[in-house]
């Protein structure tokens, strides 16, 4: 069985890693360079780097950070936050990101997804689907959970499949940062033979949360996105690697 991917979720603002609870009350975790280097040295194998300010106001200093990080850490980096045009996407790739993460740009007619896919391949795009459960339905949100997209998670999954997107990264907003577990009922929305690799995140704080998700054996599950668990305990990176990859990793 292939090892599950473990992705370190780095929410970023103005030079710092930040973390909120349910996407609110964001607090500084530490300077981004120090945090990411420490995680990499501790064995973190993959990163999603999301500029929370850019997500609201457009790309700002995200690029400088991506260049800086890609000189120091030789692990896959997905970078996003405010990417709205092809030129912005291209700049992110040229500055060291392996893949781009997009949310609101998925839902519109900008042509961004097609143009990036035609040039960089569809595997280079990660769809960040941020969801809340409203009246028994999982609905999509954008702009850091502040604005409803007007579509459901099911709609979002179909859009990703239709585009041939490289990965669907789903965050359960109301569980994010709490470390109390991921809402596995969300998984029932995803068709068993869904062809796009899925990463789940939001609330994963303990090993048994991870084991619970894995027990279902979902064929579409590619990896888990981990934020506060690593922020709270650097040793959890090594423990998780041992669990996923075996001893000595």
């Amino acid at each position, binding site marked *: *069985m*292939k*090892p*599950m*991917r473990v992705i370190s979720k780095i929410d970023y603002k103005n030079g710092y890693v930040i973390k909120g609870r349910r996407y609110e009350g964001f607090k500084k975790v530490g300077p981004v360079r120090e945090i990411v280097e420490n995680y990499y040295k501790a064995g973190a*194998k*993959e990163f999603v780097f999301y500029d929370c300010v850019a997500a609201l106001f457009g790309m700002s200093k995200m690029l400088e950070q991506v*260049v800086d990080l*890609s*000189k120091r850490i*030789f*692990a*896959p*980096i997905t970078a996003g936050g405010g990417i709205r045009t092809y030129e912005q996407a291209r700049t992110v*790739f*040229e*500055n*060291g*990101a*392996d*893949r781009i993460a997009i949310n609101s740009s998925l839902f519109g007619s900008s042509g961004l997804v*097609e143009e990036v*896919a*035609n*040039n*960089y*391949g*569809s*595997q*280079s795009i990660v769809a960040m689907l941020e969801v809340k459960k409203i009246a028994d339905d999982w609905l999509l949100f954008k702009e850091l959970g502040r604005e409803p997209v007007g579509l459901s998670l099911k709609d979002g999954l179909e859009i990703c499949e*239709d*585009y*041939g997107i*490289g*990965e669907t990264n789903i965050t359960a907003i109301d569980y994010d940062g709490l470390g109390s577990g991921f809402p596995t009922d969300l998984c029932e929305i995803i068709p068993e*033979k*869904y*062809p*796009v*690799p899925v990463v789940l995140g939001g609330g994963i704080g303990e090993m048994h949360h991870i084991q619970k998700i894995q027990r279902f054996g979902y*064929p*579409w599950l*590619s*990896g888990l996105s981990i934020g506060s668990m690593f922020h709270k305990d650097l040793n959890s990176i090594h423990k998780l690697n041992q669990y996923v*990859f075996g001893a*000595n*990793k």
Partner: protein
Amino acid sequence: MKTNVAIIDVKCCNLGSFVQALDFIGLKTEIISNLRDFYNSECDAVCIPGSGNSSQLMSCLEDMGFAELLRNLSIQGFPIVGVCSGMHALFEGTEESHQNKTKDFRKTSGIGIFSGTVRKIFNGSLGVNLGWRSPFSDGHVNCLKNGSHYPDSLFYFMHGFGILYEHGVHETVDTSEIQSSDVNQKIVAMIRTQNTIGIQFHPERSGQAGLTLLRDLFEDFNG
């Protein structure tokens, strides 16, 4: 050891991460955007990095005149390294089309240094091979002559198209098993003929193991 590496910029592949990795292991890198850049450079190896659309990449290389150059360089034994879609470009063709959304898999001609056609890997669930795999089952790398050994090392794969392994290929290969829920396939993870090497995974993003492999690779070229 080859120390001065020209990296071809075809404007449709990520360059940054590859340049950073080669810089980190002490190689001099130079980005070349046209044939004149190449002839003016003092490079002793050429790389085609890639995490892109192999059809687009093959077309760009052909249009820029690099396809013919690379064919000639390969015959002369000049070191060439292609990574991911850069590896794909070195084959005879690809089914990955320009129009991903329509899934129109028109074949596009490649440089033809390696035999075979780049095809979609598993048509079932999870049509992308994404994550950490062990391409060297006993740690031994067939494609490197210097006895490089990578026991238990994992490397990062990220591709929806690739080369399915077929017995009887005349090139030297290392293969990797990939699995979806109902399909097992063996793909080419690394391939070599003389001094032309193709790598399906991303050594520049595979942590220390990847950096070590890159260093061993550039030390391994003849001459």
